């Protein structure tokens, strides 16, 4: 059953003011195009959860979409500080809830598994546990020792970008998998964006590659270059120059506002955004192909 629609329609139908949103992807496959569409549609009071808020949430916070962030690493990866989110937290304008990477992912795993909590071993680091009441302790009935537990996270909507998907939402992902699967299964709704929409037969030719099943997908949108300035393994490279440039842009609110005006509000969709980046950038991010050795499933 086809769930294909435009990104505008998907965000319009599945992202509501006040929602808990999880835009998945650890450095890889970050769905910037969806963040920009959410900004264009003026969503408010969102709780934005991501292990690494990255520029996508820096931009959404700067655009006034968020009332709260949930994260485990608040930086501009490989560059430095995430200025907009950091300033909003330091000024007290933005609520936040903080984890370590593993406790963040464990919350998603509990949510994806239908469990009331996930256990993790103690880390001896006392302070995060003190400031976040979602860390609790449970006694292991076998050893009598304590473990830490965190509750499930159930986003209202998870946004997952993939390399290729069929029209019903069965998706192949390769390269860094991050927390894509856990976020999708934990969420109440899933918006899937894909570089390519492919025939169901392409997916069925390699079922072990299917990380997201149509079962849990609500909307399928074909959005080439969705992840820029992040990347899509095999399709285009990470735009490290932009990550550095953002460090400059985000030194002032004005800088960010004029960037948002030019690259989000003044473009009607991501295709126009990509076009606007220009030839030089397109060429710089191009990737030479390197294919996997195919495998034989056998005609059974």
């Amino acid at each position: 059953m086809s769930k294909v629609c435009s990104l505008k329609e998907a965000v319009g139908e599945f992202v509501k003011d006040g929602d808990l949103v999880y835009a998945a992807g650890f450095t890889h496959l970050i769905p910037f195009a969806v963040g920009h569409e959410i900004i264009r549609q003026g969503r408010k009071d969102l709780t934005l959860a991501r292990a690494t808020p990255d520029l996508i949430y820096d931009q959404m916070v700067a655009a006034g979409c968020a009332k709260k962030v949930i994260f485990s690493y608040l930086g501009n990866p490989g560059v430095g500080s995430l200025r907009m989110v950091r300033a909003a937290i330091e000024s007290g304008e933005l609520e936040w809830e903080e984890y370590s990477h593993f406790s963040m992912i464990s919350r998603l795993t509990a949510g994806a598994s239908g469990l009331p909590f996930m256990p993790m071993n103690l880390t001896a680091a006392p302070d995060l546990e003190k400031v976040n009441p979602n860390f609790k302790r449970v006694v292991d009935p076998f050893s009598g020792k304590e473990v830490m537990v965190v509750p499930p996270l159930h986003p209202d909507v998870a946004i997952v970008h993939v390399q290729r998907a069929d029209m019903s939402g069965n998706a192949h992902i390769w390269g860094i998998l991050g927390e894509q699967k856990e976020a999708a299964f934990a969420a109440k709704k899933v918006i899937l964006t894909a570089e390519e929409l492919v025939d169901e037969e392409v997916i069925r030719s390699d079922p072990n590659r299917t990380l997201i099943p149509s079962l849990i997908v609500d909307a399928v949108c074909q959005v080439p270059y969705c992840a820029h300035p992040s990347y899509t393994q095999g399709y285009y490279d990470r735009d490290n120059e932009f990550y550095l440039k953002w460090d400059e842009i985000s030194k002032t609110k004005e800088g960010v506002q004029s960037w948002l005006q030019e690259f989000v509000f003044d473009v009607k969709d991501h295709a126009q955004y990509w076009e606007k980046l220009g030839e030089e950038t397109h060429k710089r991010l191009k990737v030479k192909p390197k294919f996997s050795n195919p495998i034989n499933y056998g005609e059974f």
Partner: protein
Amino acid sequence: MTEKKFSKNELMVVNAARLLQDGDLVFVGVGIPNLACNLARRTHAPNLTMVYEAGVIGAQPARLPLSIGDPTLVSGASGVCSMFDIFSFYLQRGNVDVGFLGGAQIDRFCNINATVIGEYQHPKVRLPGSGGSMEIAAWANRCYIMTPHNKRRFPEKVEFCTSAGFLSGRAEREKSGVRGKGPQAVVTDLAIMMPDEDGELQVTALHPGVELEEVRQNTGWEIKVAPALERTAEPTAEELRILHEELDPTGIYLS
């Protein structure tokens, strides 16, 4: 401060690399820890395996990775798994030999603050936070810390303990029951410091041309000095050639 023949990062990378052992499985971040691992692989530790928190195992980066999830880490790697798997099946299970840590503050007992300066609820400076370091510091068999040496970075006690060193002393960490043996050394641009039997840092070696007094002036407490204070060997021509010609030709981290 005396005139230096080597850059801060050259000294940190070369000396950190020398602490790695052949066959180590290293949970590595980008930047200078990544340079240290690749230098070790090209010199004395050809069988060192690099694992990244993004879920990449046995990476063989063809270019200098600029982020923890750089695509060059994936192409040609021996394996890729989910973040949940890398943290549970590798790190929590005890399969990681070495973890690298850094932070805004490292204290007398190797505790690290990467979270906040000032009050947590009303931060003066909001830092990035733990990322994976809370788990790495607890569960990797050995940890190394690389950081520039100055008073601001070395207070007597961290304002927020993001990841555990030896807490109030080795006994407290051992009592906590975490599996990892904790920090083994702090490599700075001035010296190498290692925890003593109580888990308190002491200067064990000075880099070429560095005076002990300089280390004292740049440390936020009365730093102990090892009975047999050593001096680190100068970076060799070969080590510097690999760093500048092979690993960071454009000088992104070593300029």
